[in-house]
Structure formats: structure tokens, C-alpha cells
């Protein structure tokens, strides 16, 4: 519907919406995050859900202890290579549609431990990330901002089936779970969802 007409009707006290608008409105205001924290970012995540920052204002305070009930994964902290397969398995066990917020420098790139032999250099090597939050650790406001960003993203989702969406869905439901090899995780990254950044010449 035309935005101008919509606001004209609104002035007359008539509110119009679409089915997908209503559906997404419900979805974006009832995100259920998976209750798991990996490092110090988790403390900030916990603080966000408490009374001072009050994640409940965004309808995302119901942290679920089971991936079967969650639709948002907040990767809060350093993902070690020991932990990466578990994170991917948890992601696989979440029902679609599901979203991922990579919280903090470690989750998005390895952070201060990037040179470490045992730290995964960003969770987006294995699972598709919707929102990245930089910071070490990010303040609760930053997490709130990422939730709002994700809400905007969900609001733009379409209810209609399309090939691209189905392909994406198939891809995320078949993500390989890495195993511990002799040197590194095998595979070390999922090339279907992650491309190595091109090396820049100085």
C-alpha cells in the first residue's frame, strides 16, 4: 500500500497493515534467545537482560535453555576451536527461521586471541551471522542496538516463498559440523557461507 495513503488513513483513525507486516511484527517482538554464554560478553548479555537495561522492552528476555525453543543465538564471547562444533550443533538444532548475533570482538573475528592457535577467528566461518557487534566486551546498549537492528531485518522479511529464501534455508539446515582434526578443525571454515577476505597489498 502507498505510504502516503497509509498515513492519510491513519490521520482519520484507520490503521492498515499487511499480513506479513503483522506476522513480522509479532515475530520481531518475541525473539527467544538461546541461553548460552561463552566468555565475558555473556556477563554483558546477562546485564542486558536484567532490570537496568531491561531486554524485556524488546520482547527478547525469554532466554531458552533448549535450542528447540529458541530462534535467536547470541554468540557471546570467545569461540574456541574446542567449542565451535558445539555451537554449530546448537545452531543446527534451532528451528527455522533463526537468527544469529555475533557479540564482541572474539565472536566476530577472534578478537585479542586472534593469533592464538586455539581460537576460532570469527563464528561466521561456520554459521551465517545476521548482526555483528564490535566491542570488548560491547556494552549492553550495543547489544540492545543489535537487537533493534535485527528487528528491522526481520520486519523486512517476506511471507511469500521464494527460491532464494528456500535455498538459504536449505543451506543453513545442512551446515557441516566441524570435527577436531590433527592440526585444526576439519573443515576449517565453511566456504559456502564464508569467503576469505582478499589479501591487501601494502
Amino acid at each position, binding site marked *: 500500500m502507498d505510504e502516503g495513503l497509509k498515513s492519510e488513513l491513519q490521520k482519520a483513525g484507520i490503521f492498515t497493515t499487511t499480513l506479513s507486516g503483522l506476522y513480522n511484527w509479532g515475530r520481531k517482538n518475541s525473539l527467544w534467545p538461546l541461553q548460552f554464554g561463552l566468555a565475558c560478553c555473556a556477563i554483558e548479555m546477562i546485564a542486558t537482560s536484567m532490570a537496568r537495561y531491561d531486554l524485556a522492552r524488546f520482547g527478547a528476555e525469554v532466554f531458552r535453555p533448549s535450542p528447540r525453543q529458541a530462534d535467536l543465538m547470541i554468540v557471546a564471547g570467545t569461540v574456541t576451536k574446542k567449542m565451535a562444533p*558445539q555451537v554449530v*550443533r546448537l545452531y543446527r*538444532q534451532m528451528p527455522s527461521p533463526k537468527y544469529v548475533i555475533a557479540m564482541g570482538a572474539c565472536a566476530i573475528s577472534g578478537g585479542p586471541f586472534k593469533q592464538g592457535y586455539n581460537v576460532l577467528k570469527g563464528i561466521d566461518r561456520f554459521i551465517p551471522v545476521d548482526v555483528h557487534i564490535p566491542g570488548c566486551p560491547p556494552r549492553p546498549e550495543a547489544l540492545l542496538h543489535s537487537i533493534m537492528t535485527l528487528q528491522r531485518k526481520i520486519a523486512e522479511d517476506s511471507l511469500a516463498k521464494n527460491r532464494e529464501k528456500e535455498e538459504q534455508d*536449505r543451506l543453513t539446515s545442512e551446515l557441516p559440523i566441524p570435527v577436531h582434526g590433527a592440526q585444526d578443525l576439519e573443515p576449517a571454515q565453511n566456504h559456502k557461507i564464508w569467503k576469505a577476505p582478499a589479501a591487501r597489498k601494502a
Partner: protein
Amino acid sequence: MLPNRLGLCDLPLIKIISLKHPQERTLESFKRKPSMAYHPLLFIGVFTLSALMMGLLPVILSYLWTHWSGTARPDSVKGSVYECGLETHDQKWIPLKSEYYIFGIIFLVFDVEILFLLPIASVYRDLPHGAIVSLLIFVFLLMEGLAWAWAKGLLKWQFFKPASARSN
């Protein structure tokens, strides 16, 4: 006019529901046979149906929704039993010891039964024989539980040991 076949219409609730407003009582309504709409057992049916629907409707709706949206993609990882991120190992179908039932029995005998025995003790002289007999059946059913707990050696005063170590 009212369905009084089961004698249930003497209950005040049924009476209130089944009495029509006087103005609605036309000659036609007197001529009609008692309709099934006021059958007292109907309420039980309605309540049973709504209780079932309360449980089944969300399941049916979510089933339809996943089919319509096409997001159901079950696989072995998604459907695995353990949900803490680690791989499920060992057998999933193992026998679990159901030891809790014994606490259930003891609770029924010493808590619930006492609760019922107190009012019974105060009125049993005035009760008809039929009521006494049915009360006794109830009490003896629970006594059976007491006998069972006794035979299991649960009434012995001792430090706590799991029931498995205690029996035999």
C-alpha cells in the same frame, strides 16, 4: 418440557441454564419434544471437547504452519536427543528406575488419607451404610499402599539410602 430423565435437573446449575426466559415460552416451544440441546450430559461432552482442543489445537496449528511455510527440515542432528550441543552417545532408549512412585504412595497414605479421615471421623455416625462401605473401600485401597511400603521396608527409621539399596 425439561429433560428430567436422569434426575439431574434438580441440580440448581442445570435448572438455571435449562429454564428459558418466560417470554420465550410460546405455545410452539411447549409442543416440542425436549431438545437434545439441554441434555445435562452435553456439558460434559462440551467440556471434554474443549479440553482436548486446548491441547490439540496448538499442535495441529503448528503442524499446518510448518507444512504451509515449508520450514520443517528434520535431520539427525536436529532431532538428536541431547540438546546441550554435545553429540548424543550411547543408547537413547534406556530403562529408568522409577523409584519415585514409592514416595507417591507414602504421600497418599500419610497425607492425603489423613486429610480425608478427619472429616470422615466427625460425621461417620450419620452416614448411610452405602457411604460407609464406599469410604472403607477407599481407605483399604490406600492401606494396600501402606502394606506395600511396609513390605519394602520403607517404614524402618534409618539414614537415607536409595530404595534400590534398601529393597530385597
